[in-house]
Each structure stands twice: as C-alpha cells, then as structure tokens.
C-alpha cells in the first residue's frame, strides 16, 4: 500500500475560514454564498457528543481528530474531463474491472472527478451525468435549487454543514421523464492521502416515471492516521420514478466513512437504498427516508461485517409524511473480533399519514466473545390507521444449522462460513443489482478467510 506523508503547509480544518474561499474559487456566486453560510453553521454547531441520543455509541471526540485533518484540495481547480483512465489508481482500476455492464461510469480520486462516461444513446435521450462542480458552473437550474437545500442542507448538523461548505466535487445525475436505464451508473471513488478529509456530494434526480440505479463504491489503501471521507447523498424520485442507490464502503484501515443520506420519494415512486459497510475503521451512516406522496415506497437495506476493531454505526429514520406509503427496512450485520455494530432506527408516522405500512428489522450475528452489538429500533406513531412493526435480534451462530452442515461432511470452518453468508445473503437477494452481490460476497468471503 502506498504511504503518503501529510504535507505540513496544507491548510488544516482547524485553520478555519481560509479553507472556504479557496474551495469556492471557481464557483458561481450563489454557491459561494451557500458555502460561506454553511461554514458559519459549521462553526456555530458543536461537535456531536455521546450525550446526544443519536451519537451515544460513537464518540467522535475520541475517534476523529477533526482539527488535525487536511482538506483534500485536489479540486482547487476543476480538473480536465477525461474519458481515458490514465489517472485511475491501480487498486480502483482492478475493482472497476470486476463490474459488469454499466450504463455510465464516473471516477472520483481524492474528491476530484477524473473521468465521466455515459452511454451515447442515454445522453441523446437527455440523461445528464457530470461532475457536480461542473454542473454548478454550467448553471444547471436543478443544481441551484436542490443542492444542499431540501435534502441535506447545512442546517442538518455539523457534518452536513462542513460538507456544504467544503465539498470539492461529486456527481450530478438527472434522468428525464420516462427514460429507463438498462444498467447501473457506477461511481468509483478512491482516497489516497492519510490524514486527509474528503468532502463529496451526490445529487440524483429521477423525473416522472424514469428509472435509474446507482452504485457508489469507495475504496482506499490502509492509512496510518484517521482519514475522513464525508459524503452527502441527495436523492429525489419524482412521481412514479424508481431509484436504487447502493453504497459499497470498502475503505482500508484508518478510514472514517461518514455519510449523510436523504431520500425524498414522491407519489407512487420507489426509492430503495442499500448500504454495505465492510471496510474502514469507523463507518457512520445517517439515512433519512422521507415518504412524501401516497403510494411512495422505500426499501432500506443494510449489510455490515465488522472484524478487528471496526466500528459501524447506522442511524436511520423513516418519515411517513404522506398517507398510504410503504417502507421496509432490513439491516443485518455480523460482528467478529472486537468489532462493534450500532443500529438506531426510527419509524415516524406523522399526523395524518393514515394507511402507513412501515417495518423495521435489525438482526445481528455475534461471532466472537469481544464483539458488541447495540440495537435501538424505535417507533413514533402519530396516526391510528397504520401497520407498523419492528424487530431486533442479537444472537450467535445457530448450533443446529452448524451441526446439520457438519453432519453433511463440511468442517466447522466451512459450515460457519456458509451460515454467515446465508445470513447476510438475505439482504443482497432483496436488491439484486448487476455484479453487486458477487462483489460483496467475495469481500465477505475474504474477510471470513482472514479471521479464521
């Protein structure tokens, strides 16, 4: 793995205001203003502490030396768009080679978009896939109205504010009405500098009755010191549209992955998410699904496999604002060594959201004596004609399943591997997307191999 020593002359987050104007040097006026306001919010917002309910089990002050981080400044100038992949690091190139057919690809290295490819015919139908920074410069009105406003605005908290101030680049994807993509759009991300902080945003708008799936994969080498990747994900599905968003977090040691995701599903649309956490030292995902119109539907899936001293924390919420919407959450995790898994989820049925169907399930498999699982599935119900349930379990490998497999001639190791894969596989089978299942299964197998 490449080892990069941090360069002392770079501005650190602790240096404060100097960071923002530099990051915003090439932005349109509205964006410069938005960044400056976000920076003020960031300064005014205290770092979340374990005293707050939502951060009770993830102690940022201990895990993330925020002031010592160096903002990734790869995009102080917008890089040239490249169709070739000469700038793509080798491990990322290898990961990309495993992908099957894609309708489009976009490559992000240290917060800068270095390559964009989109199927010709899709471009002709009006699909837009480009660097978010470029889209803002190009004056796309959707970017101005939706970027950090309705989904993940600075006012959401310390990190959404920091991201809205300092984001270097990201993805803008717009699918026009009635257009269906036959393969996923894939974002491949790489972070190379130890001790850096990368701020990226993803903005996806699926217009009426369109359909798109998006795979966001993030990789990195092992780092010597904590390295932050912060992503703000804003997903809008208009009436009758369908979005599938998959996040594959496969960073190296020392990676601190922090994602703020919000999905806004309008009438009769489907907005499904899958968060897979396998890598990094700390992973924290805040996911808020808002069901804004009748007939809206969100499947929210999550899968985590922690080993060594990995720490995964998922904070999800299902906001049923409109009546007759449906959401179904399933997060499953396996925890080995001294890994810790935290799931906190809440279903909020707002007043008047009659006819809501909302479910929430979190299941944990503990594989070692030192692993810890915490589960907090919550309900807040403000309407009476609803069907809501939640369930949470924590347990170890089922002795009977192991015995059965071993009686068929498998050794203990093989049997355990099979049971774990079967346990986690349920999540993947709910969102079958080209190549994702195979990739994740392979990564889990590699982890199982490491441990035993």
């Amino acid at each position: 793995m490449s080892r990069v020593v941090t360069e002392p002359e770079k501005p650190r987050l602790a240096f404060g205001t100097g960071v923002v104007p530099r990051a915003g040097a090439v932005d349109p006026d509205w964006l410069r203003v938005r960044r400056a306001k976000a920076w003020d919010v960031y300064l005014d917002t205290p770092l979340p502490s374990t005293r707050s309910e939502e951060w009770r089990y993830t102690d940022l002050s201990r895990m993330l030396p925020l002031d010592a981080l160096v903002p990734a400044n790869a995009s102080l100038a917008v890089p040239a768009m490249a169709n070739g992949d000469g700038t793509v690091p080798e491990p990322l190139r290898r990961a990309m080679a495993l992908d099957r057919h894609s309708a489009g690809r976009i490559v992000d290295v240290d917060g800068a978009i270095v390559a964009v490819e989109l199927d010709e015919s899709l471009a002709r139908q009006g699909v837009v896939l480009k660097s978010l920074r470029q889209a803002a410069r190009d004056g796309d009105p959707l970017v101005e109205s939706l970027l950090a406003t309705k989904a993940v605005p600075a006012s959401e908290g310390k990190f959404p504010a920091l991201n809205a101030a300092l984001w270097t680049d990201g993805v803008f994807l717009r699918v026009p009405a009635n257009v269906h993509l036959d393969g996923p759009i894939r974002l491949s991300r790489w972070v190379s500098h130890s001790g850096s902080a990368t701020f990226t945003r993803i903005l996806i708008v699926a217009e009426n009755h369109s359909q798109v799936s998006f795979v966001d994969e993030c990789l990195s080498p092992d780092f010597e010191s904590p390295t932050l990747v912060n992503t703000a994900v804003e997903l809008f599905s208009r009436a009758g549209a369908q979005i599938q968003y998959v996040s594959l977090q496969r960073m190296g040691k020392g990676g601190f992955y922090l994602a703020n995701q919000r999905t806004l599903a309008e009438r009769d649309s489907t907005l499904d998410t899958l968060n897979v956490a396998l890598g990094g030292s700390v992973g924290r995902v805040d996911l808020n699904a808002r069901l804004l119109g009748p007939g809206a539907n969100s499947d929210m899936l999550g899968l985590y496999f922690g080993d060594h001293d990995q720490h995964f924390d998922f904070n999800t919420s299902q906001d049923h604002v409109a009546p007759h919407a449906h959401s179904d959450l399933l997060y499953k995790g396996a925890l080995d060594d001294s890994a810790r898994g935290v799931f906190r989820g809440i279903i909020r049925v707002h007043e008047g959201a009659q006819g809501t169907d909302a479910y929430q399930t979190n299941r944990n498999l503990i594989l070692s004596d030192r692993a810890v699982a915490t589960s907090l599935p919550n309900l807040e119900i403000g309407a009476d004609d609803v069907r809501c349930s939640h369930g949470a379990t924590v347990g170890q490998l089922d002795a009977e399943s192991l015995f059965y497999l071993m009686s068929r001639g498998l050794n203990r190791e093989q049997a355990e591997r099979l049971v774990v894969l079967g346990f986690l596989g349920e999540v993947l089978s709910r969102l079958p997307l080209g190549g994702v299942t195979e990739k994740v299964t392979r990564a889990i197998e590699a982890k199982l191999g490491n441990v035993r």
Partner: protein
Amino acid sequence: MPTNEVIQGLGLDDYKFGFVTDSEPVFRTRPGLDAEIVRQISARKDEPEWMLKRRLKALGIYDAKPMPDWGGDLSELQETLDQTYFYVKPQEQMERSWDDVPENIKQTFERLGIPEAERKLLAGVGAQYDSEMVYHSLKEEWESKGVIFDSIEDGLRNHPELFRKHFGTVIPAADNKFAALNSAVWSGGSFVYIPPGVELETPLQAYFRVNQERLGQFERTLIIADEGSRAHYIEGCTAPVYSTDSFHSGVIEIIVNRDAFFRYTTIQNWSNNMYNLVTQRARVHRGAHMEWLDGNLGSKLTMKYPSCYLMEEGAHGEIMSIAYAGDGQHQDTGGKVIHVAPNTSSSIVSKSISKGTGRSSYRGLCKVYDGATNAKSNVECDALLINETSRTDTFPYIEIDERSASVGHEATVSKVGDEQLFYLMSRGMDEAEAMALIVRGFIEPIAKELPLEYAVELNRLIELEMEGSVG
C-alpha cells in the same frame, strides 16, 4: 365509525376517586425545597444523624443534576415543584387498628375499599395518606413467622441494622435526579422482610392516597425477600382532581435472595393532574425470580421503568407492563433488564392503549454484559391506537456485549380493526361492547396474572375508560 362529537357526548373518563377529604394536617413544611425543609422532615421523624447526612447529601445531588430532557414534557415541572409541599403530616402517629385512624381519613379508605379488601384477601395492609403511613397491619399468622411488614420509618427505628445494610444499595441517590430527590425528602412507604423459606399465601398491600393540594409524595419502600421465600406485594394509588399539578416520586428497592420469588404489582390510578416519576429496581440473586406487574392508568405524566438486575447465575426477571393513556395523558413506561451473570433469563411484555389525545411510550433497556453467557431475553410490545389523535412510541435499547446471548425484540402497532368490530356487532353486540371486548382481549395476557379481584377491577377500569370510545 361514530364521529368525535358522538364520543365527546358520552362523557368519558369519569374518575371516581377524585373526591377531596376535609382533613387538617398536624404539620406541613412551607412550599418549596431547601436544606432547612430536609432538616425539618428528618427532625419530625426523629432520625439518626447518619440518615440526615444522607438526606442532605442527596439534596446536593438533586440540585446538581439537570432536569431530564428525554421522556415526557417536564418543562413546567420546576414551576410546580417550587409551589409543592414536600412534607404534610396527616396525624400524630401511625395506627395498628382502623378504629384509631381519624374518622375522615378512615372514611377515605373505606370509600376506596381498603379495609374490606384487607379482611377478604390480604396478608397485610399499609395505608399512606399524604406524607405518612396512617395505618399498618400484618396478620398475626405471618408476624409469628417472622415476617416484617411495617412503615419505612418503623423499619429504620426497629430494625436499624437490617435497614442500614440494604437502604440505598439497589438505588443509590446518584442514580437519577428523582431518586436523589426521593433520597432527600422520602417519607412513608413500606419496610418488608420475608424470612428464609416463608411463603406468603395472600398478598401484602400498600395503598397511597394524596389528599393535600400541591403535595409532593415521596414514598420509599425497601423489600428483602430472603432465601427461598415467596411473596406478592401490591400497591395502589389515587388522588383528588385539582386544577394545580401534584407530584409523586417513589423509590422502590427490592432484594430477592437465592431461590426466592417476589412479585410486585402496581395499579397506578392517580388523577390526571399528577406527575408520577418513579424508580423501581430489584436485585435478583442466584436462581431467584422477580416479577414486576406494572399497570399505569392514571396520572398526567408517568415516567417509570421497573428494572431487574440479574446478578447471579440462574436469576430470572419478568416485567409485564400495561399502560392506558387517555386524553392529555402521557404514559412513558417500560422496563429494564440487566444481565450480569450466566444463564440468566428475562422477559418484558408491554401492552399499551392510547385513546383521544393520549400518548403511550414504551421505553426499555436490555443489557447483556460480557460474561453473562447464555443469557436470554425477549421483549414484546404491542400498542393499540383508538383514535386518529392518539399517539404511541417504542424506544427499546438493546446492548449486547456477550456472544452467546440470545435477545429478541418485537413490537407491533395496530388499531381496532373495522372487521373485528363488524364481526362482533353482527353477533348482536353494540359498538361500545364490541370495543370493550376487543380491548379486554388485548390486555388479557397481563390481566390474568393479577389476583382475581384486581383483575376484575382492572377490567372494570378499562371498561369505564373505554366507554363510548369507539372511534
């Protein structure tokens, strides 16, 4: 479905315990709380110096701890507390015979049916009126076997060593703000000791009545169930309806020794102007069995989470909780089970009904420490919503540090189905009857754990509360 006007017109939620008794206290502290008041309470009780010191220390802890910002709405509580009488002494001394209790106070308890229940089905009865126990009696049969059932003050006076050894060991003053408050100003409550091997066939009961307006009631109960003993303790509570808010904050400590069985039942039916913030906890030893049966029907806001600390191998804890939240009420209840030792097991079953603008919240904790091998815990919460404006929440905390633990939590929320109502009405019931039947069926698994008379009373209360609530 009938409209809201129909529901309103039926005159719901009649609270039959809301009467006021005209009685003059023999002493009361001035409203509000400071060290002087704590000294007055301690002096009135003629306490040993160590207890006064503890009280004053607890007052310091109470002052230092912030008001909880979770659970129910406590934003107006401080204002209420500033005007609250923290100690109101109703009569000069506690009596052993109803004949000696002042007539008007005795009549209050007659109206509540306590002496009658005592004759019929109880092993012993304690009755608290405002800040003091006015009556305490234990049947001769049990007294001769060494059972102690006394007011907490007499426990301190007559059994100082046993008292001091256990007091504050299950719930220390620093546990939470209101435990600290209780530790500073406690008054009344029971001291119970069940000797090894003694099995009480009928329950002990304590009844808590608040009469004084703007009263703070702080009963303190300490129960020790010694090895292999078996007992059931019931508490009930009511108060008059005042336009001002009252405050009740009890602390109940229970020690269940090896192989003992103890059940603690609460039928809380405070009037709707009462803050009810209670800490109840049991320490459960090897092979012992603790059950909390917690019925919360009254109060303005209840925050109460009976807990079982399973300290030794084979300990078992059960919490059965039933909450009814009518208009303007918030029942924030649930339970906690803490598994510290191997082969411990626990179960929490919670049922709640929210009606009108009522809100019921389940809040619970299941914690399994590393080393509590093969711990098993199961939590089930069901919520029934009666009206569009009703609200329910579920906040379970599950913290597992032990690989071999097996823990499950399930919760469902539903409303009374039109199909269910239609079916019963097609069999000739009217809507109200059908509704009451469905609700009774919903709470049945818990109600059947109560002694017959109490189950009947609970059902009757629910029926009364549900009357005409078909929505």
